[in-house]
């Protein structure tokens, strides 16, 4: 099956709603810069990081790990049958990481200094995990957009105009260098997704023992691979419904099961780690930490049980639900690590403010809207019509 633009009218009702949400976020972002973070967010001296970091950056990039996960599956484990799902995954990843990058720019207090990060090499603090995350995400964004270029150029291939000629010249070049780009596209997420885990290691004694671990990088890495596969399933199923395609249920089922295997690995590593370090007792103290720990566990383990035992009835809807659960579980783990487990001391509270929520929702809406636009106009999705 060849990828081709989905076509169809762009300005549907849902599209317009998404654009409206994005516009609302845009206005709020202008207000954030005019009034400062103190006036628009619920961030405080006790909680310097909030929704924009915990969701937009940390969870958002994990949900955008579809490209990474699919690349691993197709190019490393050589499962060519999943190839049609790579392009949409790369698009989701590119958009997701762009949103994450944009969220960083609006979250940091002195964004006019950000240009120094990649350029002030002699000032790089190589001990800083955050530096690694920042540079690696910057690089990965570039890589993702390069990986997307073939899809963009294919639309103009063979056309008699200037762009057509550029496309004709450039596509073969891409073909040759793509292997190096794709390998980077697997190296970089490995690095920064694990470093996102390392970030919270530095909060050390202020991180609740159920989440603090020297294995945080590994757990975040397994988590992001799991979430990547889950998102691919989610997005493929959703697209099929939205664009009237016939979903390849068998493939999606496989992907869901791969995600579930990752989930099982995650849970195993987590419990082992907690037991070895003697922190497992905290899971049985009747407090909110233990409560959310078990909620996470449920989100991780329920899909595993369902996907591996209900061999008879693998409806698409069921697969879809389990994929959501896995993504939610992974997201919840990250939220908990960054917001719940972080203990600045008694008396400090944090819940995102309405402007923070509006911005996050709007940015996600913008991402979805752009996704719809690209998928309709460019050859990304390869699917039969239902």
């Amino acid at each position, binding site marked *: 099956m060849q990828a081709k633009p989905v076509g169809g009218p762009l300005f549907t009702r849902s599209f317009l709603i998404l654009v409206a949400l994005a516009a609302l976020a845009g206005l709020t972002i202008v207000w954030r810069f005019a009034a400062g973070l103190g006036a628009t967010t619920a961030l405080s001296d006790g909680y310097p990081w909030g929704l924009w970091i915990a969701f937009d950056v940390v969870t958002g990039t994990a949900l955008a790990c579809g490209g990474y996960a699919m690349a691993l599956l197709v190019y490393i484990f050589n499962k060519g049958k999943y190839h049609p799902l790579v392009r949409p995954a790369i698009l989701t990843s590119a958009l997701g990481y762009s949103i994450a990058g944009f969220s960083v720019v609006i979250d940091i207090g002195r964004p006019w200094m950000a240009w120094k*990060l990649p350029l002030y090499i002699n000032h790089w603090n190589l001990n800083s995990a955050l530096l690694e995350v*920042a540079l690696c995400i910057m690089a990965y964004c570039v890589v993702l957009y390069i990986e997307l270029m073939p899809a963009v150029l294919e639309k103009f291939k063979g056309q008699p105009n200037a762009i057509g000629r550029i496309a004709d010249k450039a596509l073969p070049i891409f073909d040759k260098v793509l292997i190096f780009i794709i390998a980077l596209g697997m*190296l970089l997420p490995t690095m920064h997704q694990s470093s996102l885990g390392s970030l919270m290691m530095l909060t*050390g*004694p202020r991180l609740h023992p159920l989440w603090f671990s020297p294995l945080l990088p590994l757990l975040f890495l*397994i988590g992001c691979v799991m979430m990547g596969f889950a998102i691919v399933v989610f997005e493929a199923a959703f697209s099929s419904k939205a664009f009237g395609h016939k979903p390849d249920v068998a493939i999606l089922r496989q992907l869901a099961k791969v995600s579930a295997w990752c989930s099982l690995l995650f849970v195993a590593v987590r419990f082992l780690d907690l037991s070895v370090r003697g922190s497992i007792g905290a899971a049985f103290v009747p407090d909110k930490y233990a409560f959310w720990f078990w909620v996470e566990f449920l989100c991780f383990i329920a899909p595993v049980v369902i996907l591996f035992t209900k061999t008879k009835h693998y409806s698409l809807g069921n697969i879809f639900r389990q994929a959501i659960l896995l993504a939610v579980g992974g997201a919840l783990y990250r939220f908990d690590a960054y917001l719940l487990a972080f203990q600045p001391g008694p008396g400090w509270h944090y819940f995102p403010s309405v402007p923070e929520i509006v911005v996050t929702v709007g940015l996600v809406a913008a991402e979805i809207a752009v996704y719809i636009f690209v998928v309709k106009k460019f050859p990304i999705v390869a699917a039969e019509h239902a």
Partner: protein
Amino acid sequence: MATDRRTLLKGFAATAAAAASMTVVSTPALARTRKTVPSDAAGLLYDATKCVGCKACVVACKDAAGLPADTRASKLYDAPEGLNEFTKNVIQLAKSGNESSYVKKQCMHCVDPACVGACMLGALHKGQYGVVSWNGDLCVGCRYCSMACAFNVPKFEWSKAAPKLVKCELCQDRLAQGKQPACTEVCPRNAVIFGQYDALLDEAHKRLQSEPGKYVPKVYGEKELGGTQVLYLSHVPFEDLGFRFNTDQPVPEVQQTVQHGIYKGFVGPIALYALLGAVMFRNRKKSTEDSDAS
């Protein structure tokens, strides 16, 4: 399905190997030697038993640092609830059972500061006399330092459009002029004194020895979290003064050991890149062979 399971088991094995190697690598003893107090280290010794809560140090610090009053709670008073963007030094009242104690809070100027380890471009750095100070030219305002500091010291200027990071820098400009920090100069009871770190530590131990009943038998900051250049003596448990942590382990130790273990010399990433490239290359060759064969 069989190939899938094999693939997945391969993946499992790889991950298990990764986990094992990371666990080994993250043993602190292996990878990272602990930092020691710098030879020119200066610091403060705060003796809570001598403090009468006059807050002269709070006023003097605001004057010396040019900070405005925090009149958010009441426009009549400068009444910060703790360290914040307007307040680099504060006196709090701690309750401990039936007793109470004043406690002065400011930057601890740690020997192995978490904030310095966190800062991407080194805006926060440990410099002359071991003082941890902030360079605005290198700060993007990410607030990772605030997340990292176990004492919750670095404060971000939430109220400003061009925010800075605010924390005690031991009056470096005054030190350069041969003067003491403002807080120690003004303290009427010498409850907080300034000096060379070694001398202050000696003095602290002398006091513990000469009047053992008066103090909790510990100099807080001597070993805690890798050591701090601001030392505390108290007659109530340090926990009640707000010092929650008693471990000797410096805050950055675990993270930096793990990170260095993974990234040392950039060998790991390069090796991984090479491995990924090699596997992809082999897969591509195999698929062209298969298609040739078919």
